[in-house]
């Protein structure tokens, strides 16, 4: 089985935010929640870089470790998913997540949290594949149709890569060799305990 990962080549990202929009539209993500976001570091200064970030589907995922109800599970493709039927909206996965991926729709007043929502790697949830119930809670299940996550598939500069970790790491290495530079695979050390030599 493949070990699915995301890789954002920050030297290619042009901060067009199409990945953010595509994700929101594809899954009809609830109001106020963005499963993916583009962050620009050193904005307007020399050497600024933009990074598209969502759930990295970590190895030994901290969210799953701290969840008090064991709502998380890891698929055979190493995608970290969760069940909204088991989630109680306590907020612990948000404290533990190194990437700020878990978000909660507001229910009621103040900050009361509803069921957690996060990137599913376009792989839905525990419900049967591509059912109305699954779509309602988690969005489409592209992985079950043999397609990769939409954000990476439609990235205009192919900055955002999704797929088997070894293959996308190889693509990135080739790019770095060819152009002679690369600012690294952002988040890989934290998420997968590995870096790609650049």
């Amino acid at each position, binding site marked *: 089985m493949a070990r699915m990962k995301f890789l954002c080549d*920050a*030297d290619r990202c042009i*901060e067009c*935010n199409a990945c*953010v929009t595509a994700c929101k539209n594809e899954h009809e993500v609830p109001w*106020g929640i*963005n499963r993916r*976001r*583009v*962050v*620009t*570091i*050193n*904005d307007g200064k*020399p*050497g*600024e*870089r*933009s*990074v598209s*970030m969502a759930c990295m589907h970590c190895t030994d995922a*901290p969210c799953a*470790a*701290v*969840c*008090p*109800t*064991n*709502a998380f599970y890891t698929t055979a493709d190493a995608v970290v998913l969760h069940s909204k*039927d*088991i*989630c*109680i*909206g*306590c*907020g*612990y996965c*948000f*404290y*533990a*997540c*190194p*990437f*700020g991926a878990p978000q909660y729709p507001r229910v009621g007043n*103040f*900050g*009361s*949290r509803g069921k957690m929502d996060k990137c599913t790697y376009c792989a839905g949830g525990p419900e049967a594949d591509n059912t109305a119930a699954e779509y309602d809670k988690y969005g489409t299940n592209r992985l079950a149709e043999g397609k990769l996550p939409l954000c990476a598939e439609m990235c205009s500069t192919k900055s955002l890569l999704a797929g088997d970790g070894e293959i996308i790491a190889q693509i990135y290495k080739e790019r770095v060799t060819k152009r*002679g*530079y*690369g*600012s*690294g695979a*952002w*988040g890989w*050390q*934290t998420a997968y305990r590995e870096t790609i030599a650049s």
Partner: protein
Amino acid sequence: MTTLSARIRLVVGALALLFILALTPAGNAQQPASVNPTAAAVKEDQLLRELNRVQGRVTLPDAKSGVIEQPAGRDWQRFHQVTLRWIGVISIVGVAALLLVFYLTRGMVRIEGGRSGRVIVRFNALERFVHWMTATCFIILAISGLNITFGKELLLPLMGPEAFTAWSQTLKYLHNYLSFPFTIGVVLILLMWVGSNIPNEIDKEWLKRGGGIIGDDHPPAEHFNAGQKLIYWIVVIGGGAVAVSGYLLMFPFYGTGIAGMQLAQIVHGVVSVLFVAVMLGHIYIGTIGMEGAFEAMGEGTVDVNWAKQHHSLWLQEQMAHQSQPRPKARPAATPAE
């Protein structure tokens, strides 16, 4: 002639060329042969080394999503999964075991000389109401809090995922909403009893002679002895700490960012499990540990012999008030002599 002028032209030309050549490197440095855009680019490992987080600007209205990486989440995970659980198990199970051993060896502390049959008012209706409101909230808050920390290991295998979620969801709401009466209770406890809980010389003597449930001696004590004063300040300070840290977690991003919430959870967790351990001792003394203690908060009255044994100075003071025609001052507010 021609050769001379040609030579001069050659020398001048050579000098001019040399001059231009000497100038050119400065001009050429602007456009090196190979471009390296990463020379000035931000580096992830450098940012992580400096701040242990990567933060930038985001076009979404949600400004806090500008933090893209905070590896401190992994440290918090270790605290929550390992450190907090050990502190909780050692303090709570440890105190419960100590109490059991203590009860088996010592048994219930009896009233010396038996009951006199005469009672004296110890806590009025308002005091008892505040105590039981806070106590009821505390017990539910403690169970729901311990469920979040230990339920996954202890209850989830027994209940199954669906039932455990329904139970935990209910407890989460109870935990959130009962925090308000609990906080009000802690504030009222602070205001109501602060006058009789200031440590003084009598407490030193009480501690020196080993008063309370551990020793056999019954040194004189006022309305509250040194042990009770300790419980009082643990409730006020501990209750204040869990209330402040709890509200920071309940209202995410109102008061603090993600690092602040991790810290608030650490304070909330550690103070709470220690609080539960201390309260086990308080409940023990107030119920099976000491004869005649429960009725102080139950009916509000205590036997006179009990009062003589445990709060001799307070009893004298009460008796003095009763013998007077009209006692004016409230007992709690009167300084002891």
